[in-house]
């Protein structure tokens, strides 16, 4: 009975994705690099790095607080060669990954329930909205009190930072499944389990993956923040500690590493998103 739409007016016949796009020749997807924006953007980026190099040298900025880029690079190589950098990167990424993984395990099934059963959503929505709008950093002291200063509190904050992106996007993905596809599936005698597995899940994958992209970013940002506030390892700790020790070269090397990781992860996720939704036949995701 749950699927029989007795209510008039709700079964608005949305044109299916298939119907909206008539015959279209197979199109090779644009690759991230292939869209030309990289070469357009390069000059300004080079200018920025150039300014970074000469501003401290010309005394526009205090080189103690703002060392030239070449000094930062030297510090970076030093950190990399000593193995310190790899260790911190590994720890930070591990914390982010565990938090994100746990968030996926919790958020996707929960999102399915909330998206599919309106009563479940009505009951839980207010609580979710309340939690979602509480800053993860405001909760760090709570996590530390409850879970101690160790790994658990760091994983908790990365979990908290990513879980709502996944949850909200799973819910909206499930809700946006074309009712006609559900009707077609039911007309073929699809069981409830198969309906989830073979229709609702694949139909909501694009939305879930888009949420995962935001979630991964958010969990990486959160782990850096948490490590700056309370940790003895990780990239955030490295940046914070270098600042306290006035090792500004190391500090900027840490920041640059963060940026680089952010960029790489983002492009990997964009690539993954395009791969996972390749049946859409068009790339409407921007790398932002």
């Amino acid at each position, binding site marked *: 009975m749950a699927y029989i739409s007795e209510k008039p007016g709700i079964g608005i*016949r949305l044109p*299916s*994705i298939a119907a909206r796009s008539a015959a279209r020749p*197979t199109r090779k997807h644009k690759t991230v690099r292939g869209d030309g924006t990289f070469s357009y953007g390069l000059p300004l980026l080079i200018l920025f790095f150039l300014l970074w190099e000469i501003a401290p040298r010309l005394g526009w900025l205090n080189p103690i607080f703002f060392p030239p880029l070449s000094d930062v690079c030297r510090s970076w190589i030093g950190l990399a060669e000593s193995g310190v950098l790899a260790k911190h990167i590994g720890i930070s990424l591990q914390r982010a990954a565990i938090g994100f993984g746990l968030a996926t395990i919790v958020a996707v099934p929960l999102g399915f329930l909330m998206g599919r059963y309106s009563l479940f959503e009505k009951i839980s929505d207010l609580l979710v909205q309340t939690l979602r709008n509480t800053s993860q950093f405001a909760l760090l002291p709570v996590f530390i009190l409850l879970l101690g200063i160790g790994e658990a509190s760091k994983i908790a904050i990365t979990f908290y930072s990513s879980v709502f992106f996944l949850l909200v996007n799973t819910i909206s993905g499930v809700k946006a499944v074309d009712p006609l*596809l559900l*009707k077609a599936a039911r007309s073929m005698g699809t069981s409830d389990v198969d309906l989830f597995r073979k229709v609702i899940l694949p139909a909501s994958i694009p939305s879930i993956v888009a949420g995962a992209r935001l979630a991964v970013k958010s969990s990486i940002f959160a782990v850096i923040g948490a490590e700056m506030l309370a940790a003895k390892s990780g990239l955030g700790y490295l940046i914070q500690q270098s600042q306290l020790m006035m090792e500004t070269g190391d500090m900027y090397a840490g920041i640059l590493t963060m940026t680089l990781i952010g960029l790489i992860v983002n492009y990997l996720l964009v690539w993954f998103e395009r791969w996972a939704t390749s049946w859409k036949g068009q790339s409407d995701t921007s790398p932002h």
Partner: protein
Amino acid sequence: MDRIVVSGIRKTFQLKPGQYVTVDGEETDRVTVLDGVDLNIRKGEFITLVGPSGSGKSVLLDIIGGLTQASKGIVQLDGTTITRPDPKTGYVFQQYALFPWRTALSNIEYALEVRGVPKRERSDRARYFLALFGLSGFEDRYPNQLSGGMQQRVAIARALASNPEVLLMDEPFAALDAQTREILQSELLKIWEKINTTVIFVTHSIDEAIYLADRIVVMTARPGTVKEIIDIDLQRPRDGDIRSSTEFNAYRARVWEALRDEVNKAQKDWALSPAYAN
């Protein structure tokens, strides 16, 4: 022998809280779309269902397909009362309803997958039906890489792949251009003549209704009932030229005669329709 027996089907929709419509000068939050439909359909018959908008053709199809429950009355398929989608029934929709993340082949396989057909056989049968619709070579195309006509061929192939005894078609060609529509009508007839499935086909097009049908069921304006059943005694197999024959013209006049008053009534009723239209 009657394959499908529709008796006393009535369907009333309850509007959402706060929604009202005016029916016969009275405010109400309930709309009756079907009001006592009786219909017997023989095995292997091709039935077309015509009627003005809002006459409940699609709702009737959904009830026969087990997708919607009737408010009153029963539908029997081979003597068994229908309460849910029957594995012996295939359904084709106007908007194709293909799964966009599955290829053409895999869309057809889906119908067999959920019925528990072994993998090997699934693939063979799906390929056979693709070939039947002239779509060999398009196995690995996604729906959005196919034209509307090709998508609907895949959708019909998907409905037929499970060898249904009843095929329900809800304005399947309405979204296609005129040429593609006529081609698909002929293809459908050719294939139907081979497999002899019982077909119930909803359409707005009088020509389509005549060309395809053994019998045309004309529905009244809302609340829908069967107004008239018109036997179409045109020889089979039929080809496209039959449309310009005198007999065909006579049928055209007759069906339109049956429909005209109902369409006029439905026009006055149009303000109501958004409230319960699909």
